[in-house]
């Protein structure tokens, strides 16, 4: 649901003025803009597959036509004239998998201290940092995620801070720089964190607030008060009422949230804390795009639905800390059943390779209590709903004409443990082929390792 922005003329000017900082920029030469270039592609038809469109449909014996990086048609018996034909009988095709919560690149493999670039643990509010400035595109995890069918992913700062900084959404095509991977036109996100992490990292040990959950809440509110003040002073200056304050990176990002340009991604486990976060959003007039690690989302599906906020969850991580003690496998299914937006995320370089399997475990658990989640619905948890919470659903997340041709070809039902990703197309180009290693990327770090060469000594 698009937020309606009612802005005074002056505010519009401000928005435009800072758009080149808070938005991705459309011109290729804008600072920090996406310089993503799709891989070379040829017009292709995939024929005779079982297709899960991401729109809730399952189409048997379907064809998909891709041209110029876009999906041209999905349906039965499509014309293959002039197209490269790929027979996909017995295969299943889904939209490319989207992981809404990854730290690839910012906590790259190998996980050495020198690669620990995800948490700016120097102050509880670091809205001024951008995850993209930590992303190492040579992380081998991008390649293994690709082999798991992941075509887009959001890289977030860590959760040490109340407000951890900007996220970035990437196309999973390893490049030489992060700019070469940035998803064209994707909005930025802002990472916020509830609960145990910020109060553990700060507090008594560091002599800096917060040290409690109430300290956390005071911290968010203070930050939003400063942001609203900055926004108002900027607006006043445009009207000639007072001098514009010096540009402030931290407040600029927070204003981006208040203006609806930047989406809030809020790490929050407990149901009661999510309920409080909704009140903070109400107080300052912003929307929470999603709660991440929402282990207790199943306790408040009605609140999530009413606020149009997604719950991004694991299938079954639990008990690693107190706020994760009430985790249950049916979580996403209960959220979904209530009409709220359920998403499965990884937060993990191994888990990102099998988001389909995480969804499958939830399907099984749900079936036990009579909640039937067919494949055409479960796939939405890792495609359509994920695209929606990242604000890229106009471009990806479903297989329909006009959208980016990001899709994953599986050698069977993606919700079987025995199924593997066979091919991955990104913008209509073949980016991964399980049976043709010459197609597949190898990051610099992995060159020369035995795992790549294959075969036992």
């Amino acid at each position, binding site marked *: 649901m698009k937020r309606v922005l009612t802005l005074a003329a002056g505010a519009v000017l401000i928005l435009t003025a800072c758009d080149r900082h808070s938005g991705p920029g459309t011109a290729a030469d804008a600072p920090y803009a996406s310089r993503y270039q799709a891989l070379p592609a040829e017009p292709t038809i995939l024929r005779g597959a079982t297709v899960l469109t991401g729109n809730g449909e399952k189409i048997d014996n379907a064809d998909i036509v891709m041209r110029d990086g876009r999906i041209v048609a999905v349906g039965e018996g499509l014309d293959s004239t002039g197209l490269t034909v790929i027979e996909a009988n017995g295969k299943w095709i889904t939209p490319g998998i989207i992981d809404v919560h990854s730290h690839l690149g910012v906590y790259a493999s190998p996980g050495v201290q020198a690669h620990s670039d995800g948490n700016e643990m120097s102050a509880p509010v670091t809205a001024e940092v951008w995850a993209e400035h930590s992303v190492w595109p040579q992380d081998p995890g991008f390649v293994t995620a690709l082999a798991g069918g992941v075509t887009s992913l959001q890289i977030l700062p860590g959760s040490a801070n109340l407000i951890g900084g900007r996220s970035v959404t990437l196309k999973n095509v390893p490049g030489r720089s992060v700019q070469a991977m940035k998803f064209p036109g994707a909005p930025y996100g802002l990472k916020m964190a509830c609960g145990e992490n910020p109060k553990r990292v700060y507090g008594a040990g560091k002599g800096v607030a917060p040290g409690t959950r109430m300290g956390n809440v005071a911290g968010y509110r203070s930050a939003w008060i400063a942001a609203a003040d900055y926004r108002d002073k900027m607006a006043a200056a445009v009207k000639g009422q007072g001098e514009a304050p010096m540009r402030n990176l931290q407040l600029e990002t927070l204003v981006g949230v208040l203006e609806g340009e930047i989406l809030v991604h809020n790490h929050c486990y407990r149901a009661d804390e999510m309920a409080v976060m909704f009140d903070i959003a109400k107080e300052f007039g912003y929307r929470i795009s999603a709660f991440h690690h929402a282990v207790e989302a199943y*306790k408040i*599906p009605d609140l999530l639905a009413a606020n149009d906020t997604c719950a991004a969850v694991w299938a079954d991580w639990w008990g690693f800390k107190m706020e994760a003690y*009430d985790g*249950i496998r049916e979580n996403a299914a209960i959220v979904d059943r209530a009409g709220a937006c359920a998403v499965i995320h990884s937060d993990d370089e*191994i888990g990102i390779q099998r988001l389909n399997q995480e969804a499958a475990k939830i399907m099984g658990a749900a079936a036990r209590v009579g909640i039937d989640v067919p494949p055409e619905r479960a796939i939405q948890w890792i495609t359509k709903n994920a695209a929606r919470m990242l604000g890229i659903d106009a471009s990806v997340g479903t297989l329909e004409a006009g959208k980016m041709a990001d899709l994953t070809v599986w050698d069977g039902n993606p919700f079987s443990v*025995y199924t593997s990703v066979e091919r991955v197309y990104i913008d209509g180009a073949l980016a991964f082929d399980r049976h043709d290693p010459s197609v597949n990327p190898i990051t610099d770090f992995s060159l020369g390792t*035995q795992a790549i060469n294959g075969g036992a000594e």
Partner: protein
Amino acid sequence: MIFRTFVAVVLLVSSATLVNAQTIAITGATVHTVGPDGTLENATVLLRDGVIVSVGSNIDVPPGAERIDASGKIITPGLISPAGQLGLVEVSAVSGSVDYIQRGDRFSAGFDVADAYNPRSTLIAVNRSEGVTRALITPRASSPDDSGNASHVLSGLASVVQLGTDGAPIVKRGAVVLVSLGETGSELAAGSRAAAVLILRAALDDAIDYGRNKAAYERGDWREYSISHTDLNALQSVVNGVTPLLIDVNRASDIEAVLRLAAEYDIEVIIIGGSEAWMLAGALAAANVPVILDAANNLPGNFDRINARLESGAILAQAGVEIAFGGGSATQTHNARNITQAAGIAVANGLSWDGALAAITLNPARMFGIDDVSGSIEPGKDADIVIWGADPLELTSYPEQVFIRGNAVDMRNRQTMLRDRYLDSSADKPPAFRH
């Protein structure tokens, strides 16, 4: 189909000593025995007094036996978690609930976590209802704290527990001794993996010497040792070649060092982790060294795991190495239940289905020396049995009933209670009033 007769003597003893003899016949299922009988269709499993009496297609069900119709179902042995800390932790980040770590190195091989085991932990019911019937519970190495105190390279004793509610929970105390080498060992040994090997050697040398000179040592008439009296005693069965060292190690060169050491001391070893073990598959098979793998591990988490790959299980099994799954934290402790997923991932990467099932049942039982009572569905073994609605390695499958030592376990747990409380959203009272 082979019909196996239970040893008559044992039957006589059972009926003589147990008044409330309970006999259960589970009929009609496809039974993956993971034993010599292989897979049996439309078979009957007969249990009495917690023990498997017989399994086969032509079993006479004794009158009075409780019959369970499992037609169309699948039966496997109970799953065995080969690593982790079930019963030694409630919440990982709540230190008061954590008992698998000893800060500092006051004790090494003798640190025995079995004395902290809590069979009433909520984790146990969660994993039991998903088919895990036994588990190895291990201590864990403790990295240097702010004062530089690390645990010893030898972390301590690991034990096998049964997850049922009847009988003694510890079924094999001190089944293995956990050792950390490689990068973790280096950290514990103040900076070099060579120092970690040296510390292990010193401990083994001391244990051998102690074994030969006990009397003099007890008199105070002998040299000092690098480890305590308790630890020396714990290592006696290791240096005598009975109790294996469970060695947490990943890099191929470190595994080669382990193989050299095992040969030199003539001791039993099991590798856990083993990211690069596949590169030494032939040598491991020749030395009869089993490997407990993390089936999903395919990224270089550190420089010890540069060559990690998903085909490890298939390559090792093909070479004749005995493997188990559950070597990674994602398939241990809170989520020990996910060893079925690990096994399925290995199948997707080339391992046989039967080999994968054995890797979560019989193989770990053999590694820890409990295969006389568990790991397969064979007459005489404890009746740890799982009835599944469908393929147990599939992600959407789940146990319909779990038996541990012949007892049908309560399939409820704290998670099913939370689920049931919040499934019904129509109630007019808050959740706290619904139970």
